[in-house]
């Protein structure tokens, strides 16, 4: 029974991943290059450690937040690509 319930979201999630994979073919090369320069490794994307450009001009490609590290008792800088960057990255190549 559990399989019958799980199979439906799995089917739709799979469809979503295929759609995202296909939109990956349309990613703007220049934008992807700029985005890569903001990270050191893929774990930075997962953990939200994308760096904004260090400049007086606000970097609207990255949205900035922060996290509290309980183990180290410190606040840490957090960041990820902004929603507008998503649109820019996909649409311009389309």
């Amino acid at each position, binding site marked *: 029974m559990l399989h019958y319930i799980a*199979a*439906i979201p*799995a*089917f739709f*999630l*799979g*469809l*979503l*991943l*295929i*759609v*995202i*994979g*296909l*939109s*990956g*073919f349309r*990613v*703007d090369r220049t934008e*992807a*290059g700029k*985005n890569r320069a903001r*990270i050191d490794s893929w774990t930075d*994307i*997962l*953990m*939200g*450690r994308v*760096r904004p450009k*260090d400049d*007086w*001009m*606000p970097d*609207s490609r*990255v*949205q*900035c*937040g*922060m*996290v*509290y*590290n*309980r183990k*180290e*008792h*410190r*606040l*840490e*800088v*957090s960041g*990820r690509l*902004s*929603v*507008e*960057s*998503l*649109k*820019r990255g996909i*649409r*311009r190549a389309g």
Partner: protein
Amino acid sequence: MESEEPDNNAAETPVDWPYSGWIPTAVGRLSFRHIGDTDFPERAEYANRVDAGDFRYIVVRQYRALSDALFPSLTDTISNRSGRFVFVLTARSDQKTSNNDARIVGSVFIVPDFKPAPVAGSPGMSGQGEIASKADEAIKAINSNRSYGPDRSPEGECASIDNYLVHHTPIRIAFALSRDGVVRIAKPAFTDVELGGKSIEQAKARGVDYERYLAEQAYFFLRDVAHAHQHHEPQTDTLLGLQETDPADIEWRNRLLFALHHHVIGQRRQGDPETLTRTLGVIAYARAFEACSGKGLQGKKLVQFENDSLAQSVATSVRACEIRALETERRRAHGRAMAIWASVAVISILAIFVQPRLNLHEAEAFPRMYAISTVFAEYIVVAIGIAIMLPLAVAWRNWARQVDNRVGSMRNTLRAPLYFNSLKVSLAYIALGLVLIGYGISVYFPVIRPLVSGLLMALFAPQIE
């Protein structure tokens, strides 16, 4: 570590207020009355009242999820981090509200999700829940009192919660907000010195000025509670940031104007009507900021932008985009109409000409058609299930193709490929997708198989004459 408390009545100097920013207001006069009335990023609890002496008192409490991890509930839990913060604002007007020059002065307190250890001989830090509950009590007290006694006035409640927060929260950031939207922000004062020291040290290792970064978080909070995001995605917090105050009080304004126009030019290249129309709103903000800045500069000149021409140019682009979008929609509508027409024609022919022939008496004359209808009748529930799933799958695929429609985890999943213009990443997504779809189909295959095999038999098995 702890910064000097700025004098709220002093002139704006880089020493007192090292950071300056602007909370956009198209009319050039920010409505203080609406500070706190916001649902973004979460509903804020707030009290915002003017007392009998015509002074305004404001207390706002908001939970803010600030982690930018792709799946914060998973990775932050594993790595023992938390992106959930409580922000509390306590403020009052520095003059009577009827005075045009009245500013809102006060502090933003930031509380991370920690369990503070008890400290002997000092009040110690309070946890998030306790701080939020104290702030909510003050908000409730200010909102519920219609007439104020000397000990239950908004001034008393505001001073009481402010005093509590000063001694029980780890970070305090003073600010002064003017009617024209200009906000001056002081350096953060760390009551928890250890937290401040470790945070600054770690940020320095990553090349970040943490004091400014933290002041910017306070600015984002102020902007969220005092302004409705109408011309950009609300999550795009870095469209306008804080600038460092300069002695002439003009350079930061020029930088802010550059930032607004930089955004306008970037958005113009997107080429969709919604983004372009929103860009017109940002140009209106730039005009408003120029106007409000021009009043107090005493002859000093801001950098000049031809905003009228720019707005006209963007409006023309909007019109051109609309025409293109209408043309595309017309073509699609034509295609849809043709598809519907063809389907209706086929169904009508089947219904009018074939269906009357499909009875037990005529079954021998149309054996294949009879066999197909028999299979469908036998597995009617499965057939209905497939008939529902197929359009749903097509609708889901069309919905997911639009970036605007992708929310939360779906949007975050999209973020990963945007760093890599790599065939491998795209293929990995597709392969994983196929595995999941394969799983879904394999589970339901035993249910679907009789219908499919029955149909194949009906269609291709040789008919006995």
